[in-house]
């Protein structure tokens, strides 16, 4: 339904979108500058700061670590979150009401508190490896997204088709893979993407669980910014934005962009 | 107060799809006209055009002689009853009913008096402070009706108002709607896909198909004398048999159908009969009989089903497949032979149609 909108409101919206997109364009511009300091508009065009990312070993290492953690924690969250979402929807009566709230807790509890508590009461207390603690922390962080997105796609799933499959002789586990999963496919893709992006970008948990020897990309970016004011950070930012664009393209291809609006 | 509605040669599009073509309709003062048809026939589009939620590509809409076509919806002063009631969930029953009065600057004692009086008329005075979420379907419908009536609009429009109610309530509510409408004498347009509902409630019914009105008439005329094959099928003439007059003999004619089947028809029952016509019969209008001596259409009997008041037979004839009824007292055997004798009171003649 399109109705007439007051021109002042349209003008306001245009300004808002300049405000939203402008700063990101500035980051891209600064990354292309040929100068040794950050500036915009770029002075001279160069890709050398992109090459510089990979010359700094800390960036090489943290990019790898961040990808590993994002993949592992997303995988764990899907592995635990899909059955949990299924149980919450299918056995609603059987399970206590607070269980759904429990899975929202990682969003409700401030991330900083979670990160600090993981450091103090898990990593230090039980001497668990930092990498493993990071993976579990990130799994927790993204679990609510998985549970919520899968629940949303299960809400429109007609459980009687599952019963139809079982009545036709399909064993429960096979039914799960051949009937249920294909029907919540878009939910799984969306959950994966949301979880992956959230993990890659996390600061508040990781900041407590990094130190000598292990760090993630956003933490490394923060550290780099404190010492240097060169366009390297802008270049890394562009890479991260490219990742976002890629992810949005995947969403568009598989689910349609209207999905993002939900 | 009440005014006549005049829709003049309206054409409307959704994007590039034409949904209404050159549609004209006059609704007289105090008259209730139903728009009846399957989904996608254009009946709701017509209503939304009159309400102002859609703009016609061409044509004109006038209420009491005043052109509405370019007026925004909120200036049209038309009472609307929606399919899913469209009650404001955040407002009490009384505030819902009073909403239109508030927009008209009616406030204070007068407003609450009129709201109260209207709620009493629909039997909901005791629920005035409830929120819509706490009401049953029938109660919601009454609130929606009260909300549309209280502003005393010159035109009332109903968009499938009863389709969300159960069967029993539907019948009660349509009587109630008709009584309120007659008591106020408000000109009304009523959109529905339910034939019984349309026929029972309306002064006239427009049967719509593919964006056009196929026939506009009183329910009685539509039911007994459909003007064309579409309307005939729509009101339940199962058998349409194309025929050709082969002999005229005073008050009688003899006509032949495909396969050489001949029937004699009396002009006093059917009026003038053109040389080429279609004989339309309901299943009740073709009596299946074992008496081979009777004049009728020879048929091989297929499946027999029990209707309660009669048996129904799926028949195979030289004039094509037909459906006929037979008495309960003498069931005929499936697979046997019979004659199908037209019952003139249950049949009608359709003149040949000009290709649309």
């Amino acid at each position, binding site marked *: 339904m399109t109705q007439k909108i007051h021109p002042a409101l349209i003008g306001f919206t245009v300004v808002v979108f300049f405000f939203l997109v402008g700063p990101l364009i500035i980051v891209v511009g600064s990354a292309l500058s040929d100068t040794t300091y950050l500036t915009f508009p770029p002075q001279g065009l160069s890709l050398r700061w992109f090459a510089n990312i990979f010359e700094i070993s800390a960036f090489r290492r943290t990019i790898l670590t961040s990808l590993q953690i994002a993949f592992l924690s997303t995988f764990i969250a899907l592995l635990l979150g899909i059955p949990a979402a299924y149980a919450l929807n299918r056995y609603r009566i059987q399970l206590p009401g607070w269980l759904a709230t*429990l899975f929202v807790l990682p969003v409700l509890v401030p991330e900083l508190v979670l990160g600090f508590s993981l450091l103090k009461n898990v990593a230090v207390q039980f001497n668990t490896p930092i990498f493993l603690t990071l993976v579990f922390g990130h799994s927790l962080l993204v679990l609510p997204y998985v549970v919520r997105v899968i629940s949303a796609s299960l809400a429109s799933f007609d459980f009687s088709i599952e019963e139809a499959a079982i009545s036709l002789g399909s064993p429960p586990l096979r039914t799960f893979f051949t009937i249920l999963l294909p029907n919540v496919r878009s939910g799984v893709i969306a959950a994966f993407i949301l979880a992956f992006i959230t993990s890659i970008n996390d600061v508040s948990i990781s900041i407590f669980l990094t130190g000598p020897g292990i760090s993630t990309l956003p933490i490394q970016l923060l550290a780099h910014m404190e010492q240097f004011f060169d366009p390297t950070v802008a270049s890394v930012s562009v890479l991260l934005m490219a990742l976002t664009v890629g992810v949005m393209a995947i969403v568009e291809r598989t689910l349609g962009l209207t999905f993002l609006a939900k | 107060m009440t005014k006549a509605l005049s829709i003049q040669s309206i054409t409307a599009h959704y994007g590039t799809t034409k949904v209404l073509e050159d549609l004209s309709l006059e609704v007289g003062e105090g008259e209730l006209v139903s728009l009846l048809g399957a989904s996608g026939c254009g009946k709701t589009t017509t209503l939304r055009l009159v309400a102002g939620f859609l703009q016609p590509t061409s044509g004109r809409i006038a209420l009491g002689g005043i052109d509405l076509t370019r007026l925004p919806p909120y200036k049209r002063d038309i009472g609307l009853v929606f399919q899913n009631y469209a009650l404001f969930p955040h407002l009490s029953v009384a505030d819902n009913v009073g909403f239109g009065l508030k927009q008209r600057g009616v406030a204070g004692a007068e407003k609450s008096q009129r709201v109260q009086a209207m709620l009493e008329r629909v039997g909901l005075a005791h629920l005035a402070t409830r929120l819509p979420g706490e009401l049953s379907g029938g109660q919601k419908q009454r609130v929606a009706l009260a909300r549309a009536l209280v502003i005393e609009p010159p035109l009332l429009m109903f968009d499938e108002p009863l389709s969300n109610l159960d069967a029993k309530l539907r019948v009660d509510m349509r009587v109630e709607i008709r009584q309120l409408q007659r008591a106020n004498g408000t000109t009304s347009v009523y959109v529905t896909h339910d034939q019984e509902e349309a026929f029972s409630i309306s002064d006239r019914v427009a049967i719509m198909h593919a964006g056009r009105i196929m026939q506009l008439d009183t329910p009685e005329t539509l039911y007994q004398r459909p003007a064309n094959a579409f309307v005939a099928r729509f009101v339940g003439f199962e058998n349409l048999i194309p025929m050709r007059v082969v002999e005229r003999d005073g008050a009688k004619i003899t006509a032949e159908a495909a396969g050489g089947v001949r029937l004699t028809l009396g002009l006093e029952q059917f009026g003038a009969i053109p040389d080429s016509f279609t004989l339309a019969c309901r299943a009740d209008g073709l009596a299946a009989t074992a008496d081979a001596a009777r004049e009728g259409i020879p048929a091989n009997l297929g499946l027999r089903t029990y209707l309660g008041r009669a048996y129904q037979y799926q028949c195979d004839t030289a004039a094509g497949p037909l459906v006929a009824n037979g008495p309960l007292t003498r069931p005929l055997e499936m697979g046997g032979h019979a004659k199908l004798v037209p019952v003139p009171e249950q049949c009608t003649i359709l003149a040949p149609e000009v290709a649309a």
Partner: protein
Amino acid sequence: MKRFSGWTLASPATLLVVVFLVLPVVATIITTFGTAGGPLAPYLGFFGSGFRRTVLWRTVQVSFIVTAIAVIIGFITAFVISRSPGWLKSILIIAAVFPLLTGVVVRSFAWLIILGKNGILNSVLLSAGLIGEPLTMLYTQGAVIVAMVYLFVPLMILTLVGVLEGIPQDLIQASASLGAKPSATFTQVILPLAVPGLIVGAVLVFTGSFTSYATPQLLGGEQVMMMGTLMYQQAMVTFDWVAASTIAAVMVVITIAIVLAMTRIARRLNPMAV
């Protein structure tokens, strides 16, 4: 899948949350009550320190301002988006989702470039002759607020577009058919129905601002210390874990209290849930 009970399927995820979230966080909070100085000593210490009280007050203040601005900008923008034709709506939603999927560090960094001493804003203002020498914009409360508004406006827009699109078109048409002018429909129908969603969005922004770390760290630094940056400093710079735990406890209590109170209000105001 009768053979699996609901608990069997839900227990691994439950275990993860209990072991790695509930227990560690509860332990963090409990330790603040078992210190040598008495059960409430860390809290007396926290609220007794003028500096920490200032930080708490500043955090509340900044979060409140950010929320108010984000609500206003978000609501107007979402309203325009929800009224836009399909193709434009898609583009605008993409333009709002993109920043949301871009990380906090990148988005805060953008403002570092803009607001810096030799940043874009200063060079524009200088060359326009509006100022004689560069303004100090970084490491001010204003910088933190601007960057946080930037951070949370997309979230607000997307939440409210969902809310506004969820209002049935029928209600708006019913309102018009009853003679309500567009402005009356807006104030009497759309706005009251959007308020519960507005509250939910506002809670997200407020708690997000209240517990943020990267943005105040980058754009506020030592000068504009907020709860998150103070907690990090106590934990990782001065290694006063009791103080850090106390701040953690205060943050948990305040965020959960706000979330519970506001969602309760939102639920009470939500007539569609009846």
